[in-house]
């Protein structure tokens, strides 16, 4: 140790060595010293020399520094120095601005960093090594590590990206930097990720997969959105890298509902004065990020779904608020207009919303009008005017409704004289002395006509009042009037611009609109003007105008319906041949797409011009040129015969088209009809189902009636079975069931009563028998009826016996009668028989008339049979009606009424039967009375029987209670015992 220090000390004491020598010595020390402290000192020394002697340190020390990284992992200090040194030699950023010595080598240093980086990354493991240091938490290591990797990416982006991409979890580890609580590391981590993701879709996707959107949006929110500092800016730049031209990530962003999180970015207050430069930058990036998601260059589906969510979450509304707010810096306003443009472009709901936005002026004016005012206002900044034009174009893009509304503001019938309208502003711009306004208004108007034949025709109706006293001139005429003045027009700005603008408008207007062509040709000066323009040999300046004139003439041929005799297709073609020459015409036409400004405009929809002079072509117009160029040349070169043939083909095609259209209409109508019929069928089906149910119910009712009738027929005497069938019937027939149940209960009661009576009768029988047998012994036990002496001879007993016999038979007869009555009652119940003789029966002397009663009952049974027959007929008609009902069920509601009537009838019958039931009950009551009388008689004969009865029932009741009590007592006892 001492020895080593001595050596070093001796060296430093010698003559001042050169930079290279010093670096070499330090490198040796790093390489050979076994002492960590020593190596650390040497690396620190290298670090301090690494700026001044960048070349030397870079070329000599790199290898040793890598070695340190590999071997001295445990010492954060030496690793930190090594990383810093590497960073210094590879970074081109001059951290010391006062380093004037280096000035001459400035350009050389740019290369140095890149070259050293190239050498460093040749060993892929070096990157892997660095990545592993980024996982080191120590600030001294992590921070220089982040800076070094960032620098490597800056110097050799694609190569380093590729290495990181293939190293396991490389990208994921770098993502962890965003989670570092030390702001310096998080912020530098953002810069690293920017470099990492720049231009590499695969890495962009992995970073997004690692929840970058969530993290970045969180940071932006935490930092206060646009009020945040440079961190917000860095986050926004990274977001842009991740999303721009990356459909997969855009889809992920949208699906992750992150668009909603952008809305608060644009919630700027009312006071928009004094925005900081950072806020302006942040907002600018925020707006650009919105545009990335809805760029017209994205796949159509992707853009439209983002547009929809921007409306749904209120982002568009927020942007429109900024649009109409005061005090917003001009460049933010411009970018907001551009952003709104792309959010609404081709998206009907958004366009409709935009049309409804009003400026908070008094009275409120539509935003569109306010914007157009700026477009035709010379004092507004050029970029702002371009933005407004773009916005207007986007509003009208694929928006037939909007186009109609704009054109309508120019039509005599719908014009509103009191308010400034879009149409007025456009006409004003079209004919103002400012060429830029002319151009913008012409293009804007052309967009109101784009692909919309109706509006092209409508616009022909527009008349302009030129000066007092002169008749009004049509808009079309006014345009050609100005054109015909050539470059003699008086304009501020480029006259070519004005003429190009008007020609683009006319070309758009006339294309695919034969009526407009006819209108144009109707003015006899127009064609001569065009041929003169095209055929003249003019300077380069005029070439573009010549080309556009050729295009216009071509359209006049291509979309000519031959309705003007002087200007038929054929005649115009001859004119070209004679006056211009086909070759010449074609050449002039080709000037348009050859123009340098043409290709620029063809690239994207946004009118984006570096200077007002470059404002020549409109994007949509370039599409039209592409479409028409070929067909016009074909049309010019085609012979008359070919033309005719084509005409024929066209006609047949048109005819076919008509047929197809006709059939399409037919199909559409039939579709509607089918839809209607389907609904009808559905309604009828459900009705049918309902009816089916009713029919089934009624059928089953009918069946019941039938069954009952059959039963009745078979079993006149067998009441029990009849009764049970009735019970079944009652169960099936839901409508009558309640009553049936009640009746059944009553019957049951009556039955019980009868049973009791029969029991009593039997007892009495038994009693009589007893009496009979006991007679020899007991003679005066009972007092004899009708004055017969209680005590007496066997004669007396015999008499008594006879009397008893008579009574017994009487009782038997009565019990028979009761049975008969019961049967009768059942029949009456079921068959709805009119009982007329009931009262008579009730009053008759039961004993005497028992037989006749039976006969009577039989008669009545016959009557009831008859009635049943008629009922059966009724039932038949009913069932016929039902089957008719079933057939008619689809179309007829009246059948329902009929069936309801039937139901009512049935109900009526039921009511009748109820009444009969009541009558029967009266009858039964009478019978009861009679029975009571009989009982009394019996009592007179044998009271004990009755008493015995009472006693028995009483005993039973007591027994029950007693046994219950007993049980309870037992339980209690058990409980007590257990206790």
């Amino acid at each position, binding site marked *: 140790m001492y020895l080593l220090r001595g050596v070093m000390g001796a060296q430093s004491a010698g003559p001042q060595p050169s930079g290279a020598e010093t670096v070499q010595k330090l490198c040796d020390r790093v390489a050979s010293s076994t002492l960590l402290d020593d190596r650390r000192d040497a690396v620190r020394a290298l670090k301090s020399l690494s700026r001044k002697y960048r070349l030397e340190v870079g070329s000599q020390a790199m290898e040793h520094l890598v070695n340190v990284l590999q071997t001295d992992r445990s010492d954060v200090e030496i690793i930190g120095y090594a990383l810093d040194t590497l960073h210094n030699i590879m970074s081109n950023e001059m951290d010391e601005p006062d380093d004037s010595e280096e000035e001459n080598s400035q350009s050389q240093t740019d290369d140095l960093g890149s070259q050293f980086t190239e050498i460093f990354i040749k060993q892929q493991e070096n990157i892997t090594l660095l990545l592993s240091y980024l996982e080191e938490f120590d600030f001294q290591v992590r921070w220089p590590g982040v800076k070094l990797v960032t620098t490597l990416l800056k110097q050799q982006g694609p190569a380093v990206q590729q290495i990181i*991409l*293939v190293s*396991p*979890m*490389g*990208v*994921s580890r770098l993502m962890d930097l965003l989670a570092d*609580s030390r702001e310096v590391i998080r912020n530098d981590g953002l810069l690293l990720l920017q470099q990492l993701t720049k231009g590499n*879709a*695969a890495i962009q*996707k*992995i970073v997004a*997969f*690692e*929840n970058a959107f*969530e*993290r970045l*949006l*969180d*940071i932006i*929110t*935490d930092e206060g959105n646009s009020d945040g500092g440079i961190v917000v800016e860095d986050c926004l730049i990274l977001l842009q890298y991740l999303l721009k031209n990356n459909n*997969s*990530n855009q*889809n*992920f962003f949208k*699906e*992750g*509902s*992150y668009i*909603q*999180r952008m809305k*608060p970015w644009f919630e700027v207050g009312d006071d928009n004065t004094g925005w900081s430069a950072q806020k302006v930058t942040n907002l600018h990036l925020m707006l650009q990020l919105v545009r990335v998601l809805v760029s017209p260059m994205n796949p159509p589906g992707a853009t439209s779904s983002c547009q929809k969510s921007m409306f749904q*979450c209120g982002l568009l509304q927020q942007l429109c608020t900024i649009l109409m707010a005061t005090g917003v810096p001009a460049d933010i306003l411009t970018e907001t207009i551009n952003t709104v443009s792309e959010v609404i472009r081709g998206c009907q709901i958004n366009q409709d919303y935009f049309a409804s936005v009003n400026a908070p002026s008094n009275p409120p004016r539509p935003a569109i009008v306010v914007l157009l005012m700026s477009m035709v206002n010379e004092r507004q900044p050029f970029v702002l005017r371009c933005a407004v034009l773009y916005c207007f174009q986007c509003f009208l893009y694929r928006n037939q409704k909007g186009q109609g509304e704009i054109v309508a503001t120019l039509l005599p019938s719908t014009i509103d004289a009191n308010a400034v309208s879009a149409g007025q502003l456009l006409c004003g711009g079209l004919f103002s002395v400012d060429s830029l306004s002319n151009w913008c208004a012409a293009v804007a108007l052309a967009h109101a006509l784009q692909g919309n034949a109706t509006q092209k025709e409508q616009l022909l109706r527009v008349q302009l009042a030129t000066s007092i006293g002169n008749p009004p001139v049509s808009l079309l005429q006014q345009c050609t009037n100005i054109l015909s003045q050539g470059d003699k027009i008086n304009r501020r700005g480029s006259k070519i611009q004005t003429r190009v603008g008007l020609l683009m408008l006319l070309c758009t207007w006339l294309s695919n609109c034969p009526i407009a062509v006819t209108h144009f040709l109707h003015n006899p000066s127009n064609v001569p003007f065009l041929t003169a323009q095209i055929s003249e040999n003019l300077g380069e300046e005029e070439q573009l105008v010549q080309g556009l004139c050729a295009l216009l003439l071509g359209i006049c041929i291509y979309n000519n319906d031959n309705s003007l005799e002087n200007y038929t297709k054929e005649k115009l073609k001859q004119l070209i041949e004679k006056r211009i020459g086909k070759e010449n015409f074609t050449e002039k036409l080709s000037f348009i797409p050859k123009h340098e400004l043409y290709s620029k405009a063809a690239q994207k929809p946004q009118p984006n011009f570096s200077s007002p002079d470059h404002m020549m072509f409109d994007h949509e117009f370039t599409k039209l040129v592409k479409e028409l160029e070929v067909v016009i040349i074909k049309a010019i070169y085609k012979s008359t015969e070919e033309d005719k043939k084509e005409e024929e083909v066209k006609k047949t095609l048109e005819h076919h088209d008509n047929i197809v259209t006709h059939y399409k209409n037919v199909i559409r109508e039939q579709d509607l009809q089918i839809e209607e019929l389907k609904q009808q069928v559905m309604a009828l089906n459900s009705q049918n189902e309902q009816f089916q149910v009713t029919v089934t119910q009624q059928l089953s009712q009918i069946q019941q009636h039938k069954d009952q009738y059959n039963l009745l027929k078979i079993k006149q005497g067998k009441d029990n079975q009849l009764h049970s069938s009735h019970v079944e019937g009652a169960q099936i027939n839901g409508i009558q069931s309640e009553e049936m149940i009640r009746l059944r209960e009553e019957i049951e009661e009556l039955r019980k009563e009868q049973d009791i009576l029969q029991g009593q009768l039997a007892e009495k029988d038994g009693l009589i028998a007893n009496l009979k047998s006991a007679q020899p012994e007991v003679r005066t036990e009972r007092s004899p009826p009708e004055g017969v002496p209680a005590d007496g001879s066997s004669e007396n007993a015999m008499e008594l016996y006879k009397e008893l016999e008579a009574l017994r038979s009487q009782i038997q007869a009565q019990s028979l009668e009761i049975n008969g009555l019961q049967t009768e009652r059942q029949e009456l119940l079921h068959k709805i028989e009119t009982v007329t003789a009931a009262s008579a029966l009730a009053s008759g002397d039961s004993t005497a008339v028992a037989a006749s009663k039976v006969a009577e009952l039989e008669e009545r049974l016959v009557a009831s049979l008859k009635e049943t027959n008629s009922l059966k007929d009724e039932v038949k008609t009913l069932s016929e009606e039902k089957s008719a009902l079933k057939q008619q069920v689809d179309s007829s509601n009246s059948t329902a009424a009929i069936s309801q009537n039937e139901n009512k009838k049935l109900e009526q019958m039921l009511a009748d039967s109820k009444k009969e039931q009541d009558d029967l009950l009266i009858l039964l009551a009478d019978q009861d009375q009679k029975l009571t009388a009989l009982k009394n008689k019996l009592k007179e004969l044998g009271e004990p029987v009755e008493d015995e009865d009472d006693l028995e029932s009483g005993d039973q009741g007591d027994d029950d209670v007693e046994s219950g009590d007993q049980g309870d007592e037992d339980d209690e006892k058990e409980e007590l015992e257990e206790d």
Partner: protein
Amino acid sequence: MAYAYLFKYIIIGDTGVGKSCLLLQFTDKRFQPVHDLTIGVEFGARMITIDGKQIKLQIWDTAGQESFRSITRSYYRGAAGALLVYDITRRDTFNHLTTWLEDARQHSNSNMVIMLIGNKSDLESRREVKKEEGEAFAREHGLIFMETSAKTASNVEEAFINTAKEIYEKIQEGVFDINNEANGIKIGPQHAATNASLSGNQGGHTSGGCC
């Protein structure tokens, strides 16, 4: 759309087995007959319902080609579910399953649910791998198994949904740490509010997004 949970899936397997078609069928209910080689990865998403809960599936369809292997490996770690797909008409795609499985097990978190899928079940006449073989492989390696057809859509819904059910069950059992987003699971905004005290990471999650 508000969701209760968000699951991240990856789809892996040899090139041409029909991974992209499965995803397209699941998200767009379409079939793409031409093989459109996937470059790197492509993203797709759909909402499903399990147990009455809305679950958002975010699916990364990876490229099967060997040259993209290192890229696709980056997606294993953050995924909660993987669909490992082979083609029943190409035995080699079945033979490569072991390699795929090793790769997946090595780079993913251990709880990742893997669903083995034998695709192109509509091509019965050209079948080279028996259904029983697929079942046996799945049983042996503890995977769920299904045969699907991205063309006829047979079992496609089921494959994605059953995988989600398995993950959902694991969550119920407490196997997954739902507060660690690296597991490929995220709790929906309305649930996050109740779990905010648990997650406690700088409060970033509670802000913003309404759905």
